[in-house]
């Protein structure tokens, strides 16, 4: 993604809190920094592993494969890096959308049970039909994500009025743990290896192949383009429902489209990479700090930053216990959980 497309005229943006109106200059710097980090991460991610590949040989090895390590690069490491970027983008944008749609700072796919729902349905499908893969898995994953998300929203919102962050978190965490338990029961019955247990509980890109990327890409394109197109309505939604309605917004429609995009993004990402934790919660918060809360700028930058986070988490995870492959979700959880604690602590709560 080029820097020029990211930077939009600042007056385009409607800001919820005037104090974080960001200058175009700042956005440019953040975008440039992200770009550098992405490039560095891609090079790093391609070169390290059980078989080191020197920097000089990287460019050649991407395009032809005469040597064994070039084959490693093309069939294992390249898809892994690409998938990390894609999955991170999907989850981070989904998180930003969710926080906007639910008007709730703690709304995120992993907290609302969306990821756990997708995982449960996918594992169930694989248990029943072991050969299942590709499009049917992703569609089922959508179903699970949607059902869990809608259920949690309904349960948390049953009190009427604005859903409090606490109720949302409690309902979501409970639904998640229920779904995770059910998933574990399925895995026990299936007597799968510990590897697949960990994959579906933690999530990661260490089993990535080109097929995963082919499966993910169309849905991701729909989800991301749809999300970026929704930036303006989301900005209006951030002003509050009444104000947005006054400005001619169809608030319910914006919410519905936003939620549908969340389902598509999370469902697709989880079906190929498992429930990589906390990307959707922390990336939007960090980026909002850096570039302000205009979704025109925020959503594309979240996509890049989410990809960066998963990519680096995947790189770090390779250092944890070589030669074992550790799922990247472990690392993102370790980074994300303290930030979750910080966000929870910061909530203004009334009992």
């Amino acid at each position, binding site marked *: 993604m080029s820097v020029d497309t990211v930077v939009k005229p600042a007056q385009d943006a409607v800001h919820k809190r005037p104090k974080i109106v960001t200058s175009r200059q700042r956005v440019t710097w953040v975008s440039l920094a992200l770009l550098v980090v992405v490039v560095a991460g891609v090079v790093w991610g391609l070169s390290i592993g059980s078989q080191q590949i020197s920097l000089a040989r990287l460019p050649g090895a991407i395009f032809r494969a005469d040597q064994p390590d070039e084959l490693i690069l093309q069939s294992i490491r390249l898809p892994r890096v690409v998938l990390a970027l894609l999955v991170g983008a999907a989850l981070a944008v989904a998180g930003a959308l969710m926080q906007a749609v639910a008007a709730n700072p703690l709304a995120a796919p992993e907290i609302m049970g969306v990821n756990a729902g997708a995982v449960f349905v996918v594992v169930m499908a694989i248990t029943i039909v072991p050969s299942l893969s590709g499009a049917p898995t992703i569609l089922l994953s959508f179903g699970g994500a949607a059902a869990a998300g809608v259920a949690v929203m309904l349960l948390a919102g049953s009190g009427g009025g604005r859903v409090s962050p606490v109720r949302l978190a409690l309902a979501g965490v409970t639904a998640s743990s229920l779904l995770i338990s059910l998933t574990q029961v399925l895995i026990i019955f299936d007597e799968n290896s510990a590897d697949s247990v960990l994959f579906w509980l933690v999530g990661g890109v260490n089993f990535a192949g080109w097929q995963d990327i082919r499966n993910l890409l169309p849905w991701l394109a729909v989800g991301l383009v749809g999300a970026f197109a929704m930036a303006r309505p989301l900005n209006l939604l951030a002003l509050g429902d009444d104000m947005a309605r006054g400005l001619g917004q169809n608030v319910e429609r914006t919410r519905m489209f936003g939620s549908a995009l969340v389902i598509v993004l999370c469902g697709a990402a989880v079906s190929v990479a498992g429930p990589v934790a906390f990307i959707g919660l922390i990336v939007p918060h960090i980026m909002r700090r850096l570039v302000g809360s205009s979704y025109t700028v925020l959503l594309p930058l979240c996509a890049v930053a989410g990809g960066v986070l998963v990519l680096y988490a995947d790189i770090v995870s390779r250092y*944890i*216990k070589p030669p074992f492959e550790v799922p990247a979700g472990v690392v993102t959880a370790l980074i994300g959980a303290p930030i979750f604690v910080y966000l929870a602590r910061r909530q203004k709560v009334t009992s």
Partner: protein
Amino acid sequence: MSAAIVAQGVRRTSLAQRYPSILMGSLCVLAVVLSFYSLSVGATDVSMGDVFNAVVGNTSDQAAQIVVQFQLPRVLLAWLVGIALAVSGAVMQGVIRNPLAAPDVVGVTKGAGFAGMLLLLAIPGLPVVAVVPAAFAGGLAAAALVYLLAYRRGATPVRIALVGIAVSAAFEAGIRFLLVRNPLDVSAALIWLTGSLFGRSMSSVLEILPWVLVLVPLIVIWSRKLDVLGLGDDLAAGLGEPVERTRRMLLLFAVALAASAVAVSGTIGFVGLIAPHMARRVFGGKHLASIPAAALFGVLLMLFADMLGRGLAPPLEIPAGLVTAVVGGPYFLYLLVKTGK
């Protein structure tokens, strides 16, 4: 929210609330019968009469003796863990004044799980019994951490719940890190982590027994204080209750009970959350009645979960913690809808 529950209890005095001892007695009988049934079913079926004779000690039936020797600790643990978790949950819900509070919510369960696993994986081959003190310390530390992080001129109940969820997530992340860091010992740790009464011996029973014997009566004696705290901080202080101190003591008791339960059985979810609700629904909001009742419901839940886990698909054993989560999760979500009004 808690006010609504108290009001509900006052408004609608059911038969159970007028004659609590009768219903409590029948629940007790039910739990005992279920225990003997639990002893008698298994790989070898033994009649309940033989089991009873074996438990009191006047039998020569070899099979019954073996069954009792292996299953009795398990059933006793179901009782003790059920009581500990349920009473702990009841106290937390009373103190935090949030019907959604529970050992799982305030981080005790996950903290104890993390510490226990840390030790288990650090020293492979360690008997599971040795994990108890570590898990206990972990649970206490987690609860203290939650309290400290939530403390801003007093710890408001809602912030405790919210910070508790987040701290639980942090420990969960740590647990997963340990799991992947030690891929070869995972299966042992995983079994312990999902919460199960499988393969526990009499020594586990003795680990948890003193905590239950000391703390539960103490909490029942203090149940009046819980009622007072339920009136709200201002009113409670007006009635002469040192609110912050009482809250801290009661929370400490609750945490100790939950931690001891997790230490012997692993992380068994939802019992501490839903047993107190069942008790309040049936016996009303007065803690003198609802705490013992919660304990009984906790026992019934544990016995039921353990039996179901054993009997659903033998020889596969589904950990009791998964069964309680599958049964308790929906009930909790139903409660969430009910309390939203």
